[in-house]
């Protein structure tokens, strides 16, 4: 290939938040993620859906560089996450119920530490802002472990927004919140995505959340991508009223081993 063409495609790739190619993860004989390929465009919110064990968390962990793919590759802003994670880690962030912030540190201390780790120069300003934005100011000097589950979730989200990431990976961001606060968080995320033109990849079991936030849905089952379309397109294609009905329909048919899904595809 012409060198100029190669350089140009390299530059283009550097603008794309995520490119996953033939991504596979096997643990012994179990294949958690099975040759999946997808691409996240800048400024889009994409939901990763699937039942338990579908491979959502493993996929996110591979995007974060926490898990090494068995084969295939992940590029985040053009950087190969197996080798060059350090070049782009400051442009992304994540929140997950599978990790915690140190419980003995106060909220302010935790946010201070992570702001510095992410290279935020205006630490005090940013900590004050994200705390205010997520209504954590009254709890700033309280140990993180003394907060309620919902408050801890908001602290995790505050940590994830400290560096105003261009790519935000969220694993069940509203899992432990009451419906009202969860709704408020969704609005915050939508507002963040719009104002920052950020790309969000969201793993969730909450279909209402996905319908509200996502431009696109990647539906996974047994480590494979079985659908990749907008929520509206999926609802229309399957002739259902809600995304939840589509999800249940697809997953149950998969479980029964039927192969008539292809007939429904456009």
């Amino acid at each position, binding site marked *: 290939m012409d060198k100029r063409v190669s350089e140009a495609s390299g530059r283009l790739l550097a603008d794309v938040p995520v490119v996953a190619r033939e991504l596979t993860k096997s643990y012994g004989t179990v294949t958690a993620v099975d040759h999946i390929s997808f691409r996240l465009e800048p400024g889009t919110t994409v939901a990763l859906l699937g039942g338990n064990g579908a491979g959502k968390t493993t996929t996110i962990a591979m995007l974060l560089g926490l898990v090494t793919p068995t084969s295939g590759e992940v590029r985040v802003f053009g950087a190969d996450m197996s080798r060059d994670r350090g070049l782009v*880690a400051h442009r992304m962030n994540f929140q997950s119920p599978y*990790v915690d912030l140190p419980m003995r540190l106060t909220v302010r201390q935790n946010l201070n530490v992570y702001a510095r*780790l992410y290279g935020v*120069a205006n630490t005090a300003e940013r900590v004050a802002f994200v705390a205010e934005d997520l209504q954590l100011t009254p709890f700033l000097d309280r140990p993180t472990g003394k907060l309620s589950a919902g408050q801890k979730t908001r602290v995790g989200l505050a940590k994830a927004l400290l560096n105003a990431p261009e790519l935000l990976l969220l694993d069940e961001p509203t899992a432990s919140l009451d419906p009202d606060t969860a*709704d408020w968080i969704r609005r915050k995320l939508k507002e963040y995505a719009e104002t920052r033109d950020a790309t969000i990849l969201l793993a969730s079991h909450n279909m209402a959340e996905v319908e509200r936030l996502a431009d696109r849905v990647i539906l996974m089952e047994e480590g494979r991508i079985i659908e990749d379309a907008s929520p509206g397109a999926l609802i229309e294609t399957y002739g259902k009223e809600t995304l939840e009905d589509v999800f249940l329909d697809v997953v149950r048919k998969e479980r029964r081993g039927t192969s008539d899904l292809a007939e429904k595809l456009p």
Partner: protein
Amino acid sequence: MRPAAATVKNPAPILLPPTGAGSVLRRIYALVLRYTYLLRGSGVRLVELIYWPFLQMLTWGFLQKYLAGTTSPLAQAAGVLIGSVLLWDILFRSKIGFSTTFIEEMRSRNLGNLLTSPLRPYELVAALALWSIMRLGVSMVPVAIAAYFFFGFNLLDLGLPLMAFFALLVMTSWALGLVSAGVILRYGLGAEELAWSLAFLLLPLCCVYYPVSVLPGWLQVIALALPPTHVFEGMRAILLHGTFDTADLWWALALNIGYFTAGYALFSWFLHGAREKGTLIQLGE
């Protein structure tokens, strides 16, 4: 209750470059800050840091005092036992400081956050090493001062070699800490016991309280392959005979570099294995 809307103006983050020496130091500082917060917030931890070394020093100090009344010339040598216990505690406490701080990250399920941040694994190791020295300062300085007031033993009497002894023992402790951290990373918190017991393996082998010549020939070979043995031999040589062989310390330094390199390689290998096996997303469970 639904939180109200934010009122603070949105300041965009000013992001510093992620590469270069400044960024490395900044991230190491961030972690050391995290450990300082942790220690500052717990009076019990602070007391515990001094409590055990202080008890050790008292026990061995009184034993030394008792033996000083016997006829053995070795036993009468001022401060050999207290010197041994203080130097041993430098090795042991530094190792424990390194390992337990790493375990703390795993227990608090924070390692996933750290390893997805811009922090590099070698920066984590550097922060743990730096913190182990800072903890050591908190732990050993008061105890060394107490040894002077209780038994008239001045650690500084060891003179300049004390600096070399300190550096060599701390370096060994880091190598041991890296092995413990790697094993815990690979096998989970079930292997935590190893973090505590690994240093004790050295206790009989590196001749803390007795000279190498006491050991059988084959065991002497093993003992001399351990850097701390040279430190303890050096300390006894200074206190008993007022002499000191620097060649011994160079040899200990060479051994230490080898052990530290091997320790770091093992830690990296286990970290790589944890990424392969996916255990980093199950830590703490």
